[in-house]
C-alpha cells in the first residue's frame, strides 16, 4: 500500500509539471488560436536561463526561478512579435502559424543545444531545496511539494484572472473575435502581448521546476513536456484551465501507475490512446464548453 501511495504522489508531482506546462500552452491556443509547436522551447530556455543565472550570480532558488519565468515570458513575447503577429496582420489562419512555429521550434531547439554545449546540465545540489520529507512511511521530496503547490497556485490564479477579472474578459473577447473586442474598447494588441508573456512565463515555470526535479536542463526538457502538456490541454478542455490542471495530474498518475503495475513500454501508448480517444469522442475535452470552436 505504501508503494502505491508513494507512486501516487510521484504521479501527482509529475502530472503537476505537465499541467503547469499545459496551462501556458492552452492559454495561447484558446485565446490566440495558435497551436504553437515551439512552446516546449520556452520551458527549455527558461530552465537554461535559470541554470546559468544561478551559476553566474549565485542566485538563491527563488530568484533563479523568477529569472526562468521572466526568460520564458520574454522569449514567448519575442516569438509572438516576430513570428505570429505578422501572420495575424495578414489574416493567416492556424495552419500558417503552426508551420511558422515548427520553424521556430527547430531554431530554438538548436540554439538551446548550443547554449548547453549539447550537454544535459544539472542544477548543483544546494542551489535548490532537496530535503526529503516523510509522511508516515512515504518519502516526499521538497521539489515534489513545491511543484504540486505551484501548479495549484498558478491554476487558481489563472482561473481567477480569466473568469473574474476585467483583463480576463478582455482575453476571452480577443480570443473570440479581436475586431469585435476592439469595437468594445479592448486593446487587442496589448492583450495579446500580455497573453503571450503569461503563456511563456507559465511554461517557463514548468521548465525550471522540471529541470530541477529531473536533473535535466537541456533542449530535450521542453520536448518531453510538450506532448504531455498538449495531451493535458486536449483531455482537460481547451478553454478551461481547471480541466488542463486536472487532466495533467491524471496523465502523470496514469503514466506512473502504468509503469509500476503494467509496463513502461505501454506508458506512452496509453497516454496517446487516451488523447486519441478524447479527440474522437469528446473533442472539447473534459471541461471545454460545448460551443467552443477551436477543436
Amino acid at each position, binding site marked *: 500500500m505504501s*508503494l502505491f501511495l*508513494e507512486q501516487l504522489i510521484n504521479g501527482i508531482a509529475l502530472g503537476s509539471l505537465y499541467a503547469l506546462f499545459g496551462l501556458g500552452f492552452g492559454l495561447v491556443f484558446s485565446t490566440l488560436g495558435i497551436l504553437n509547436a515551439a512552446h516546449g522551447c520556452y520551458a527549455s530556455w527558461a530552465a537554461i536561463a535559470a541554470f546559468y543565472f544561478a551559476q553566474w550570480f549565485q542566485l538563491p532558488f527563488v530568484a533563479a526561478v523568477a529569472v526562468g519565468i521572466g526568460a520564458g515570458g520574454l522569449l514567448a513575447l519575442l516569438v509572438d512579435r516576430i513570428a505570429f503577429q505578422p501572420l495575424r496582420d495578414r489574416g493567416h489562419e492556424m495552419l500558417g502559424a503552426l508551420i511558422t512555429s515548427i520553424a521556430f521550434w527547430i531554431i530554438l531547439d538548436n540554439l538551446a*543545444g548550443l547554449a548547453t554545449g*549539447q550537454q544535459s*546540465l*544539472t542544477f548543483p545540489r544546494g542551489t535548490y531545496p532537496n530535503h526529503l520529507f516523510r509522511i508516515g512511511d512515504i*518519502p516526499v*521530496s521538497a521539489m515534489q511539494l513545491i511543484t504540486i503547490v505551484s501548479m495549484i497556485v498558478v491554476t487558481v490564479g489563472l482561473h481567477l484572472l480569466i473568469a473574474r477579472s476585467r483583463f480576463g474578459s478582455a482575453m476571452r473577447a480577443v480570443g473570440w473575435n479581436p475586431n469585435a473586442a476592439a469595437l468594445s474598447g479592448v486593446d487587442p494588441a496589448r492583450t495579446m502581448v500580455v497573453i503571450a508573456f503569461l503563456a511563456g512565463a507559465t511554461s517557463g515555470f514548468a521548465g525550471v521546476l522540471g529541470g530541477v526535479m529531473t536533473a535535466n536542463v537541456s533542449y530535450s526538457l521542453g520536448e*518531453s513536456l510538450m506532448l504531455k502538456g498538449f495531451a493535458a490541454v486536449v483531455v482537460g478542455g481547451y478553454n478551461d484551465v481547471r480541466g488542463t490542471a486536472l487532466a495533467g495530474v491524471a496523465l502523470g498518475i496514469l503514466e506512473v501507475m502504468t509503469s509500476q503495475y503494467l509496463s513502461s513500454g505501454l506508458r*506512452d501508448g496509453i497516454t496517446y490512446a487516451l488523447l486519441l480517444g478524447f479527440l474522437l469522442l469528446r473533442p472539447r475535452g473534459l471541461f471545454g464548453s460545448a460551443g467552443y470552436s477551436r477543436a
Partner: protein
Amino acid sequence: MSISHRRSFVIAAALATALALPSVPSAQGLPPGEYKIGFMTENTGPIASAGVSFWNGAQLAIDEVKSRAYMGKGTSIVLQTKESGSEAARSIQNMNQFIADRSILAVTCCILSPVVGSVKPVVLEAKMPLVIYGATAVGLPSPPWVYSMTILPGPKDIETGLTVASEIKAKTAAYILANDNEAFRNRLNDTRTALEAKGVRTAGVVNVLTKDTDFTAAATQAMGLKPDVIFIYATQSAAVGAVNSLRDRGFKQTIVGNDVLAPETVFKRMGQTAVGVPFPVSFSSALAESAEGKAFIAAYEARFKSTPDIYSAQGYQAIWFIAQGLKSISGTPTRASLAEALSKITSFEHNVYGGEIMKNGQAQTTGTLIVNWSPDGKLVRWTAPKN
C-alpha cells in the same frame, strides 16, 4: 613493319609504360599526399556530449599522424565530415554521399548500434571500409569491410557485477534498464545470468526509456523491490537520472553503473551523487599507465582544455587504426586495398590502453578496471564500502 609503323609502335609502347608506371606498386610504401576518410560526427542530438569526445579524439589523431609522418613523409589523412545527429536516416544519406565520392577511402562512424545496423548493409553493398568508433552491440564487425574500435563493455560489465556482488555480499539484485536499447538489454541479461549462477537472486527489472527525463517513479519501483544492489543499464542521461533519483529517494545501498558514467562531464553534472558508484572503464585519464596513454592525455588536455574519456580514446584509436592500414599499403590505396590491409591488423602499433588487439574485426583490451568517482571528482579504483 615499316619505319613509320615501327616508330609509332615505340612511341605507343613508351607512352603505355609511362602511363602504367604510377599504378605499379611502389616498394617504398604510401605515396605522399592527402588521403580522405569520411567521418560521421554526432555533435548534435541526444548523445552529442559523447559525440564531441569521439570527434575531439579523432582530430587529435589526425594531427599526430601527420606531424609524426607516421604513414610516410608528406602523407596525411584528411577528414571529410558529415553530421548525423545520431539519426539512422541521416546516417544512411551521409554514407551514400561518402560512397559517391570516390576519393574517400573509408568511413568511420556511429555511436548507436541500431544506426550501425542501418548503414552496415549500405557499406557492404558498396564495398566501403567502415570503422565503428562507438556502437557497443556484439556482432557488428564484418571483415574485411566493417571493423569496430569500440571496447565492448559486456565482458567488463559481467566482471564488475561479479566483483561488486562478491565484495558487498549481495544476495539480491534489481536492475534499471533502458528497455528500448537492445545493447543494454543484452548486457543486462549477460550480467544477470552470471550473477544468478553465483546465487544472486534477481529481485526485479524496472524498465525505463532512453528519452525519459523523470526517474522518480522508476527509483521508487526499484527500491520497492528491496534489493541489496541496483544495477543500471541505460544511456548516459537515463543512468545519471536514475542514480540521482535513487539517492534523492534515500537509497543508501550500492548502485552499480556502467561505462557511460566515466566522462568528466558526468561528475560535473552529478556532483557528490556520483561518488561511490562503481562502474567499469577501459580507459581512464586518471589511471592510465602506458607512455602512449599518458602522452595522449597530455596532448588532449593541451588542445581541448579538458580530460579525455573513453569516447575520446575510441575516436583517437579509430583514426590510428585506419592510419596503420594505410601505412601498410604500397602504392596508391583503394577502398579494396585498405580493407585488405585493415583485415591483416591483429595488434596495434599505437594504442592508449596499454594493450589492445584486433580479433575478427573487433578491438579488445584485457583486464577490467572498476572505478568510481571520488568526492573531489577523480576516477579512482573502487573498493567495497566498509560497514
